[in-house]
């Protein structure tokens, strides 16, 4: 217990008028956020007090639309200013860095020299096309940048579906040969642990949760974080249940009240969107609980069926987005009749469909409504390898 350590985070908060008492309350709310008992409060406070420095981090943009950076700016508590001023020291981040050009790259390099101490946050797809030249940064390819940054990182947080498995960029025909961070590192034999946070873009509350998990609970050093991940490297406490499991419109589903036309009175009543294509039953995220944009709303509440942007290979699996799927295209398998899914795949998407889609069919709850999507030859042609580790 290095109690004499300079107590940086507390000092920074004290500068904002946070008293010792407030500080402990803050630790208490963190414990609540993590679903921990209040008995952990002293533990968290000690973890914070031990920290002599802000956690060094670098945020790299691969083949990104910058939407995950944008999304990060929508973080609620802590807000983005607190994250970059008082929790992490993100010394390089293309969209926010004050520095530019070589000076910005030098700032990143200084972090890379602290081997094993920094967190690497990666946004966007890993761009392999044209020998990596489909992404050029500082006169080098994006691949060279990742090759250089990844081995020394304590951990990599892959934010957004593009970083997880290539996302929409790797949708057929994958013109720029995009892939995900974990898949690329496997190819290169780099073993840095990767935490995958899919959805398009990433939900900032999840990034913040991981930061708290790693920094305040020390779950990276203890290895505890690895136990919290599923086989796709996703934290189970975020991606363990389907949207359908927690959907506020679930009651209407149970009662057989469905929206059959967009923008209708049925929508004003908040009926279930399953018939107009909702992928909630096969999509494993906690969107209905955490919601989006500082909890203002989320897709289904705004009247939009879930498109499954948190699923692996989400564009090719989820499209056509506004149709119910009779055949569910699955990564590594090809188009599959629901009846044989359970026997072929242990994948989470399949389990979701079996649990909910088939159940609905069997009970006759799904008669009527928009037509089922037909078996499509072009989708069969599109199916390819990939879709997670």
């Amino acid at each position, binding site marked *: 217990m290095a109690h004499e350590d300079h107590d940086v985070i507390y000092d920074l908060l004290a500068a904002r008028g946070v008293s010792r008492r407030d500080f402990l309350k803050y630790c208490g709310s963190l414990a609540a956020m993590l679903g921990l008992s209040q008995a952990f409060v002293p533990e968290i406070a000690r973890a914070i007090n031990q920290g002599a420095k802000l956690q060094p981090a670098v945020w790299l943009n691969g083949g990104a639309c910058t939407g995950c950076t944008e999304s990060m700016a929508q973080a609620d508590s802590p807000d983005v200013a607190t994250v970059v001023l008082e929790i992490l020291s993100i010394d390089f981040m293309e969209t926010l860095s004050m520095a530019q050009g070589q000076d910005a790259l030098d700032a990143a390099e200084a972090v890379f020299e602290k081997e094993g101490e920094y967190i690497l946050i990666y946004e966007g797809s890993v761009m392999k096309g044209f020998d990596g030249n489909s992404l050029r940064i500082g006169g080098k390819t994006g691949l060279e940048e990742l090759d250089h940054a990844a081995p020394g990182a304590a951990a990599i947080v892959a934010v957004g579906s593009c970083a997880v498995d290539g996302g929409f960029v790797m949708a057929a025909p994958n*013109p720029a040969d995009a892939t995900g961070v974990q898949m690329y590192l496997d190819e290169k034999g780099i073993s840095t642990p990767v935490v995958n946070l899919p959805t398009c873009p990433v939900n900032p509350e999840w990034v913040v949760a991981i930061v708290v998990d790693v920094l305040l609970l020390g779950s990276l050093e203890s290895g505890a974080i690895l136990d919290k991940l599923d086989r796709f490297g996703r934290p189970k406490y975020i991606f363990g249940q389907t949207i359908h499991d927690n959907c506020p419109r679930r009651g209407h589903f149970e009662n057989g009240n469905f929206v059959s036309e967009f923008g209708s009175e049925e929508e*004003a009543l908040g009926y279930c969107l399953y018939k107009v294509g909702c992928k909630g039953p096969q999509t494993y995220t906690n969107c209905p609980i955490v919601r989006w944009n500082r909890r203002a709303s989320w897709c289904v509440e705004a009247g939009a069926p879930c498109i499954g942007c948190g699923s692996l290979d989400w564009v090719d699996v989820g499209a056509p987005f506004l149709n119910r799927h009779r055949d569910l295209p699955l990564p590594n398998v090809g188009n599959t009749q629901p009846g044989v899914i359970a026997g072929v795949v242990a994948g989470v998407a399949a389990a979701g469909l079996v649990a909910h889609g088939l159940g609905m069919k069997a009970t006759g709850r799904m008669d009527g409504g928009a037509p089922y999507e037909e078996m499509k030859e072009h989708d069969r042609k599109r199916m390819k390898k990939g879709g997670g580790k």
Partner: protein
Amino acid sequence: MARQVVDPLTRIEGHLRVEVEVNDGVVTDAWVSGGLYRGMEKILLDRRPSDAFFVAQRICGVCPISHGHASTMSTEDALGITIPNNARIVRNLIEAAQYIHSHILWFYTLAALDYVDPVKALSADIADTYALAQAAGTGVSDFGAVAKRLQAFVDNGQLSIFTNGWFGHPAYAEDMPAELHLIGVAHYLEALEMQAVAAEIIAVMGGKFPHFMTSIPGGTSFVPTENKLDDILFRFIKLNDWVTNTMIPDTLAIAPFYAGALEYGGGHGNFLAWGVFNDDSFEMNNRYLPAGVIKVADGLTVADADPSVLSEDVQRSWYESASGLHPSVGEADAMFDEYNTEARYSWCKAPRYDGAPMEAGPLSRMLVAYLRGVQPVQEIVDGALAALGAAGRPEVLVSLLGRIAARNLETKVVCDWSLEWCNELIEAIAGGDSKYFEPHNVDEGMGAGLWEAPRGALAHFIDIQGGKIDRYQVVTPSTWDCSSRDDQGVRGPMEEALVGTPIIDPERPLEACRIARSFDP
């Protein structure tokens, strides 16, 4: 003939390299290179038109609303769908929220650090800061708390996103008081809050931001119940208050210290706008910010914008398909050989209008609207010109400072309209109009979605055959502005705007970065 390279150009959306040649303290030539190829136009092929809305908006995580709208409009144009009036208003409101969000984020989070030096803010006197804020008529924050927070951050020595910034650069206005720097820092933090409020409006109407869900071909799947209407209206009121009382006064307070920026950075002087925010006629020239073209050769006069005279040159960028094609029949076959400013050097194509490079963005829209007599635009522009000592001379806006001012003034105009549209929607609902979506079952046709992202003219072209996308081409504002040289060797708008920019310290060309960022690429 010293070449200076800024790569990556930070504080923008995406990956950009800026290379300038500096002679005797002035930029004499420039090359701008887009660093990323994803192949979106190929990804969309053979998919359903209704899926294009969801995928194509992901071209840009900062302006997905505009891409989503342009995509869905191209499908509606191809299939002959007219959306219900309520859907039109809903789309205007979502688009408005994105404009306000994007412009606040650009000015404070991306651009301000080129004009405001956080280190200078440390020496501000707190009482004087309050006095200055009141004199400038701008928002009063808890300046003491901000200064303390900043000091604690600096004392800690880990500068996070400020690491290696060009603090104390001689291009920061020497006579700008420390107190104004502190006001800038305080409002940098406030802006982070306000951009999030604007994004919340999009979440209410579109599910989430970035990447929204509801403006599907045919109208919108969002139905504004009473609960949702007040969530929207009162957030717009809050934003309007802040833009009126903080963002606009900040702009006018800082601008005089950089008045020299009225003298350079204008570029070719050609401007294109497709127009944005439909009225109930759905005509491009009747949009709240209307369509139009301004060509330098004709002086400051506006003509109708004609999408049939577009072409995209690719001889200087990494594509091997035919050069000079109209985007509705365009190809995008990528290749890569080497980065060579004498040959191919960018993933950006070179779009041209009737053969000429065109600037896209708020300056284009505001000039077109001004010349077309859009009253709120004329009033606010004339007011700002008077405040800058350039009354009656709108031509001075064709400059670095003019480009910045146009964006911030547009924010205020859009805020005012957003309140008008909220009321329009409330009245329509009160009058019994409950139609938001037009069902459709046509599956063939060609169409265009001509629209405006916050950063400029945006066009999506679609060709639908047998219910599937047969061709899809997009001309984004950043390909207009960050265009490489064309087949004739003519510079793109940003390249041209860089030429003539004075550079104090060639090793750290901050002034060139300001020009590039002023386009909000």
